[in-house]
């Protein structure tokens, strides 16, 4: 039995298996008002949500495709299936999940991880959550962890309406608008005042259907003085047609609260990952991002943090690994609004086999954000001469009373290092994998152990056959 999070060596087949989707309920390809209304009907949306979907569709149609990043020409929106649902209902206990889907997640090690180290798990298969569970003791603390669809109708309906796509409005960019129109699935988390969730919650997103899009929405509210670690994992089997991921993550961190949001993304290499993540932090709150980007064909991913309250903080730790055929444009954005706010970005990017890895950052310090501190540090490692690595930092500092630091390093893997390790008996492959893992140490140190192991396995996997 292969298990995603606990194995020494994983092979590609672990992520690459696919299930036939004959019995799935699927909407037609493309994007029309009819399709959007059909999704809305499927979900039994309240009026405001249906309106939001239709408004988003209009915005989508009025906006241009982004023209500043990696090419997304291969993405033909007329052929993306926006909604795919297995003929199943969401289950609260693992045994009720249909075998085929259960098997998928078991192969990925999700229930195993839940038993060992998680406070709650959500599992999304194509467009819908198929499983959601939270540990009883955590639920007793008043922590809500549920699928967004039921939250829209339940006790927290007002809270959802108040927050949903307020941080990332559909007008933000074309794919935010697309998301607003066709979103489906995702999680809602609410951590009440003062509650500290000791072990992480995790949502796992699996896109099985060919030529489909996944548009899950994650909405997390961490109330005053509360504390949460949320983990997001993503994967998909490889197809020869484009798949699209345009999820949206909105995070609200209240006064003196802390949220850590970790992602290990390993989409297959036919995926366009155009994801939007944003957090707003109130006074004294802290946002910590840990982000590992390994998969996808093209990524645009720049989690943004708005440091609204005085003394709020953010840390972003990221790693991006672009191999053959991948163009990964990743980074982070921060806006300092409150006084004495601080941000720290520490990223690594690795490219090999002709892959392109771009680090793009944006730092804005408003006039009011006096005594703020900014530190941006990014390093790139190119494993061969055909790969590319770029750094595009932007800074807009409107107060002289800010302490701003930026450092960037771009390097190649050094023959001397490889030789040194090999002189102790290591193979060239292992030596290079070790150097790359060491380079990625900033991120693996921030991850829970089993995810750090998984990340190192992903690096080893990427390094295999990269010699020559």
């Amino acid at each position: 039995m292969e298990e995603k999070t606990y194995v020494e060596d994983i092979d590609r087949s672990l992520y690459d298996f696919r299930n036939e989707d004959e019995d799935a309920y699927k909407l037609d390809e493309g994007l029309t008002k009819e399709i959007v209304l059909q999704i809305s009907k499927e979900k039994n949306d309240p009026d405001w949500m249906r309106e939001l979907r239709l408004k988003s569709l209009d915005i989508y149609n009025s906006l241009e495709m982004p023209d500043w990043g990696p090419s997304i020409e291969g993405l033909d929106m007329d052929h993306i299936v926006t909604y795919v649902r297995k003929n199943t209902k969401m289950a609260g206990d693992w045994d009720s999940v249909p075998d085929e889907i259960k098997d998928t997640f078991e192969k990925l090690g999700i229930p195993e991880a839940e038993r060992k180290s998680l406070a709650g798990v959500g599992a999304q298969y194509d467009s819908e959550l198929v499983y959601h569970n939270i540990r009883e003791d955590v639920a007793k603390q008043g922590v809500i962890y549920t699928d967004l669809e039921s939250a829209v109708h339940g006790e927290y309906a007002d809270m959802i309406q108040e927050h949903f796509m307020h941080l990332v409005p559909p007008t933000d960019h074309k794919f935010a608008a697309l998301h607003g129109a066709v979103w489906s699935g995702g999680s809602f988390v609410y951590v009440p005042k003062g509650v500290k969730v000791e072990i992480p919650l995790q949502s796992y997103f699996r896109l099985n259907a060919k030529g489909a899009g996944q548009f899950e929405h994650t909405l997390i509210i961490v109330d005053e003085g509360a504390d949460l670690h949320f983990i997001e994992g993503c994967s998909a089997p490889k197809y020869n047609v484009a798949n699209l991921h345009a999820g949206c993550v909105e995070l609200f961190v209240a006064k003196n609260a802390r949220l850590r949001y970790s992602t290990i993304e390993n989409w297959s290499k036919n995926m366009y990952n155009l994801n939007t993540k944003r957090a707003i932090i109130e006074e004294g709150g802290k946002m910590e991002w840990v982000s590992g980007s390994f998969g996808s064909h093209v990524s645009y991913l720049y989690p943004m943090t708005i440091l609204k309250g005085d003394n709020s903080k953010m840390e972003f730790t990221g790693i991006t690994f672009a191999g053959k055929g991948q163009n990964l444009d990743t980074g982070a954005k921060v806006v300092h609004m409150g006084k004495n706010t601080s941000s720290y970005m520490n990223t690594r990017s690795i490219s090999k086999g002709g892959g392109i890895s771009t680090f793009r950052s944006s730092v804005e310090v408003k006039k009011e954000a006096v005594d703020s501190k900014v530190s941006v540090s990014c390093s790139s490692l190119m494993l061969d001469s055909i790969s590319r690595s770029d750094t595009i930092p932007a800074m807009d500092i409107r107060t002289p009373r800010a302490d701003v630091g930026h450092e960037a390093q771009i390097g190649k893997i050094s023959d001397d290092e490889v030789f040194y390790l090999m002189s102790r008996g290591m193979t060239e492959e292992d030596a290079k994998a070790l150097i790359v893992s060491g380079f990625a140490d900033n991120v693996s140190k921030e991850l829970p152990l089993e995810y750090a192991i998984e990340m190192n396995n992903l690096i080893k996997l990427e390094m295999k056959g990269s010699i020559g």
Partner: protein
Amino acid sequence: MGEYLMEAKNLHVSVNDTEILHGVDFAVNRGEVHVLMGPNGTGKSTFGFALIGNPKYDVTEGSIIFDGKDITEEPVNDRAKMGMFLSFQNPIEVPGITLSSFIRSALEQKTGERVKLWDFKKKLKETMEVLQMDPSYAERDLNVGFSGGEKKKAEILQLLMLEPSFAILDETDSGLDVDAVRTVSAGIEEYRKRCNGGLLIITHSTKILESLAVDKVHVMVEGKIVKTGDYKLVEEINNQGFEQFES
């Protein structure tokens, strides 16, 4: 004996198509300590790198025999597994792996067997004591932020833990203060006790040799060994320098 532990025959070595070594003959028996001396830039380190198999150093002529096998074309990692070792003049910093787990994985590579953690830790601790190394270094990333002296000690620690049958120490004493040189010498002595291996010590100072029984001294000038003798040759060099050997 009949067969040497390690033998270089008529070794010609080029770096970037420039020949540095012009036919070096050299042989070591098990248990012997050889010293290679000579002025700066004369090819001593090149010789060490060529023996261990650095791909930047091209052997254009001649051969290297180790344990009766021609290893001239073998990659460095295979030579290491066969029992060759080079203590680097400038050890490389490698973040992401601790000194301790690096040595352990090197041992496992070499023996092909899993190393028992308990036994390993015990031996590592004892060996670090011999080298007067603070035990906390074992759990620090390999050479990262180590002082010059600690890096050299870490090399000798690897030598003692991996127990190769032939080791090249490339300027292990350079840049060390008197106490550190003494500690490193003690480490080398310990290696001889543990393994009875062959040693090639590349140096241009003689401090490190004081407490060692040296079997042979070679003087290299301009890519050739110009004289071989016993320990007396060291004294000669101490008194007169290398000028007498230069043509």
